[in-house]
């Protein structure tokens, strides 16, 4: 961010500050409020939740929900495992392909780079739609109940490829690549040994975009996965929420039976599923901001 300008204490400046601080404070509260409700619910005794509803602060504090969740943790642990696996594999593979593509597409001596760029870009303005895509992947590529279904579709996106191309062309001076070529380095060697080491900020940004996509995915599981032990974390949560709702609508009484999780268990589950993101957030958000900045200003 720019250094704050020398601010003259004029009337209009004071008025602006009062309005500004108020507005931004209110917006921040608005953004935090739903998350606070969830955390508070997870630490509230369940029958209090049922009788008095959700509140911003636990009316009767209890960690029972967490304790009960950890009594049978297999499902969550399993969903965590598959999600971590897909996130790691997908992000690594995606990064490799995206950086390699971005590198080739910004080489001025590669004749077809604008044609290839357009082939990639075109997919954002026209597509066959979701149904043909699903039929192709399920009937012809046999993706049902494979991890391919959870990894392949999120490997890359035109936005990330263009972001990476812009990042490479604006951070790696072309002379470096030229002189390496004169020293008869191969095109792949230039990419691997010269370009990759100097674009780590770009890799961090794109990697985070990819990882977030994998971590938060529920859609691909909902389409392709029917085996419970292959569920993604978010879909596991979604499935649980739905079964609770279904049970409620059917009028199955909630007496803390094992199959029907209670209100507070639901909230504890949300906290456990989202926790890692909130925890990592302070450390990674600047890479996001840096990436968005490159993508929006220099593109």
């Amino acid at each position, binding site marked *: 961010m720019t250094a704050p300008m020398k601010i003259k204490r004029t009337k209009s400046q004071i008025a602006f500050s009062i309005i500004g601080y108020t507005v931004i404070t209110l917006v921040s509260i608005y953004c935090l409020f739903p998350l606070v409700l969830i955390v508070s619910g997870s630490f509230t005794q369940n029958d209090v939740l049922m009788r008095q509803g959700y509140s911003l602060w636990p009316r009767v504090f209890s960690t029972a929900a967490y304790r009960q969740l950890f009594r049978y943790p297999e499902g969550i642990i399993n969903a965590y495992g598959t999600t971590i696996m897909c996130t790691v594999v997908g992000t690594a593979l995606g990064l490799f*392909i995206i950086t390699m593509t971005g590198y080739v597409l910004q080489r001025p001596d590669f004749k077809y780079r604008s044609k290839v760029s357009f082939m990639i870009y075109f997919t954002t303005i026209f597509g066959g739609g979701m*149904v043909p895509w699903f039929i192709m992947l399920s009937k012809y590529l046999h993706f049902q109940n494979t991890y391919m279904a959870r990894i392949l579709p999120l490997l890359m996106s035109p936005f990330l490829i263009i972001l990476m191309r812009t990042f490479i062309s604006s951070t790696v001076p072309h002379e470096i690549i030229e002189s390496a070529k004169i020293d008869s380095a191969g095109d792949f060697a230039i990419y691997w040994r010269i370009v990759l080491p100097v674009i780590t900020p770009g890799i961090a940004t794109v990697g985070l975009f990819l990882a977030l996509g994998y971590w938060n995915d529920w859609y691909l599981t*909902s389409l392709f996965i029917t085996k419970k032990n292959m569920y993604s974390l978010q879909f596991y949560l979604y499935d649980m*929420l739905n079964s609770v709702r279904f049970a409620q609508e059917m009028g199955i009484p909630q007496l803390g039976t094992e199959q029907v999780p209670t209100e507070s268990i639901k909230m504890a589950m949300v906290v456990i599923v989202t926790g890692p993101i909130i925890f990592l957030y302070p450390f990674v958000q600047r890479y996001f901001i840096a990436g968005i900045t490159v993508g929006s200003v220099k593109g």
Partner: protein
Amino acid sequence: MAGAVKAKESATKATGRAKKKDGFVAEFRRNKVMFAMLIPVTVYFLLNNYLPMAGIYLAFTKFNFVGGIFGSPFVGMENFKFLFSSGKLLKLTANTLSYNVMFILVDHVLQITFAIILSRLGSRIFTKFTQSVMFLPHFVSFVILNVIVYNIFNYEVGFLNGILTSLGQQPFDAYNTPGAWRFILLALHVWKGVGYGTVVYLATITGISTELYEAADIDGANVFQQIRYITLPLLVPTFIILLLMSLGRIMRGQFDLFYQTVGNVGTLYDVTDILDTFVYRSLRLEFDVGMGTAAGLYQSVFGFIVIMSANAAIKKYQKDYALF
């Protein structure tokens, strides 16, 4: 975004042409390795984007899974006829468009406002912290929206009704008040995306030279005048690019948001059903592949026309802002 890139590329292309005139074979021989490096990306887009386009044919069939794309009975325009004559398509289009127009308008007004405020507040600790808080919802999954809606609007245990009853008011039954969902969905959409957009605009604002403001200061312009005559005009290019990109998605949009919040609540379809949710349901719940493809194709073509005409219009008026 792509406009500038293209200009740069056509410049280098011109010099390349002057040097040597050669065909695909010569280029392939020279840059074999680079061609090889593009294999993964090509395979990806072929499988994930281009091959499925052949499936558009499904829109003209009555699909069965055994026959597959080309073995299912051909029914011509039947699917489209049904969609049009039942009035369904009109309703879905109206809903999709009105939601997206509302989202685009509110998004940009709020994002620009917040970005301008953040850029001009003195306390950096405050702006850094609030910016992080505003950006946080972007990181949580859409499944969380499912939970949030429940926590706030559930009839028995929701936060809202807790407040209302403690104030002696009638409790509010969201699921039997379809009209309210326009605002609820807007509020949730803003919640999820306002931070991201604010950061984009903030990036542009911080790129503006401080000299401009200093000069304006000397000339006696107050904060509001400076915003009006310096910041806003300089945000126009970013605004137009972002607007064009959102216009490209005007027929799609926000499947996660709608599906996770209202999902399959049939009583609300009149107000909340958009093309995306309809297509998803045709596939997953009604198994009507032909109908789903037809609606999806209509969505794609309509969106394509919108983006092409918007781009052409911008091109005519201000060439630099065009996407391609």
